[in-house]
């Protein structure tokens, strides 16, 4: 689960109650204390829950990453050993390369979503609701079920995709079992399942563009295509920036699809494409809960946190070059 504040939220933020004290019928001082107590009481359940299940765990994970866990419980302080091990571990290197590759490929889904959102955004387009529903269907479907369906489509011997290819005389590979194609096959499923989500965000962005801009462009003699490139795209760039942030953060955390397509533990290693499929979070799960190497697993997710922070920071840096705020 990830979240980034959109520019739209700034507007809601301005609608916040002014810091003017609400009038109380009774004594001012007592009303104020009572209100504060109610305030604390209302936030207490979630506040305590977040402290116990989220805030404290982050600190603990950071601490665990500096320890080594014994098989029979108990952990010993090892300083930065886990991090040194991490830097030298070829499996971590591969997982990083795969995760970054998957993330880069996933960005190809953004232009695709913009094009389909533009097609759907035409006024009075028939069946727009039906199309939108079909695009959105994979977003709500259980990722495990989605991965099962695609694994079967990708099957080298009995899969529908290779059957289709054979009709035009192409001998298809074993997609997710072939090291050459595995990552691309995985990324294709990622793009397919995220398309509807990105499309909805872009549709909302397009609908926020004032009609007058298009009317003015039309008066200037701009055709559909020119309007798309000169009006829609520049005004959509803040939305595209937002989608790219969310999509990168999501891709870096990929787990479900890989877990089903590649598996985990010794059995999964039988797949020759396994080294091309393993992602950072999948490796984390494997180390933490399959091989019970929790200190090392903690170091892996701390690395993930740094990676997400760095990638987000880079994107914020780059936005000046391509994002136009109206």
């Amino acid at each position: 689960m990830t979240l980034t504040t959109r520019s739209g939220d700034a507007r809601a933020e301005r609608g916040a109650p002014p810091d003017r004290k609400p009038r109380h019928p009774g004594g001012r001082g007592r009303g104020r204390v009572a209100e504060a107590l109610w305030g604390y009481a209302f936030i207490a359940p979630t506040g305590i829950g977040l402290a116990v299940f989220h805030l404290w765990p982050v600190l603990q994970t950071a601490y665990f990453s500096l320890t080594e866990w014994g098989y029979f419980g108990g952990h010993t302080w090892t300083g930065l050993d886990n991090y040194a091990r991490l830097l030298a571990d070829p499996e971590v290197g591969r997982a990083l390369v795969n995760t970054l590759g998957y993330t880069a490929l996933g960005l190809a889904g953004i232009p695709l979503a913009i094009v389909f959102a533009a097609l759907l955004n035409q006024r009075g387009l028939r069946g727009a609701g039906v199309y939108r529903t079909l695009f959105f269907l994979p977003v709500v479907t259980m990722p495990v079920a989605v991965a099962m369906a695609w694994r079967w489509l990708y099957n080298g011997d009995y899969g529908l995709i290779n059957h289709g290819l054979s009709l035009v005389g192409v001998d298809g590979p074993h997609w997710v079992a072939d090291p050459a194609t595995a990552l691309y096959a995985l990324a294709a499923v990622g793009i397919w399942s995220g398309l509807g989500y990105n499309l909805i965000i872009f549709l909302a962005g397009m609908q926020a563009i004032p009609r007058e801009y298009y009317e003015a462009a039309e008066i200037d003699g701009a055709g559909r295509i020119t309007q798309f490139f000169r009006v829609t795209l520049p005004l959509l760039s803040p939305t595209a920036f937002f989608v790219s942030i969310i999509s990168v953060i999501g891709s870096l955390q990929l787990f479900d699809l890989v877990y089903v397509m590649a598996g985990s533990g010794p059995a999964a290693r039988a797949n020759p494409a396994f080294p091309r499929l393993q992602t950072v979070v999948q490796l984390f799960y494997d180390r933490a809960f399959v091989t019970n190497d929790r200190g090392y697993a903690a170091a892996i997710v701390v690395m993930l946190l740094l990676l997400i922070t760095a990638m987000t920071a880079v994107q914020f840096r780059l936005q000046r070059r391509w994002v136009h705020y109206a």
Partner: protein
Amino acid sequence: MREPRARLGAHVALIAASLVMVTPFAWQIVTSLKTLSGATRVPPSLLPEGRWENYGRMFELLPFGHQFLNTVLMAAGRTVGQVLLSSMAAYAFARLRFPGRGLLFGVFLSVLMVPPQLFVIPQYEIMLSLGWLNTLQALIVPGLFSAFGVFLLRQFFLGLPRELEEAARLDGAGPLRIYWSIMLPLARPGLVALSVLVLLWSWNDLLWPLVVNTDPERMTLSAGLASLQGQFRTDYPVLMAGSLVASLPVIAVFVFLQRQFIQGIAHTGIKG
């Protein structure tokens, strides 16, 4: 007239894309109605074989009934609990004044920036020490507290008119009464949007259920289905039947509550 031609081109592109979107589902349905030998025939047949008993056989492959019930209870428990608790905190942050409000809200928001995988090992340790592994509460309790829920609902509460609240206050209503009888009913669209999102994420969640509940009878559907992957011989038609039934409830809710799903996502830009 180039207008109709442009329209036609748009429809062709959209229909082609729609086919790509639905083919995996259609193929899943067709496969779920085949025998194993029918499903592995080369070249594949595009027609189903009417093997409805595959839908019964998933109960042999997995404790499917248990897993379905676990998933329903987890999703329902998390949704009701999280919406209730988040709405309380959101109301306080939006409408009540107390020292440290801004700071506390900042702390809540900071939780949103952390990838959830950082919580998993310590949360697992908590469950272990409470003796909660392989229980329903392990699936539900950590999912009750959500900075996101507080953030989303606070935005809704901020947008509500103050007049009704002021009137109630003059009539002597306290914060609890205002929250329950005025704010919650007014915030219904926000509560529904949060509910559908929590329901969706809970139903589809994999990593946490996989970690805490390893006893097949205590697993959720996503973990149960995923656990079949490692097995040597997988009966794909039955697996497809199970996958379809596992996804169906959320798809059904989506079809009925499309607007809320889409608004929830479009307004918050959040994805599970």
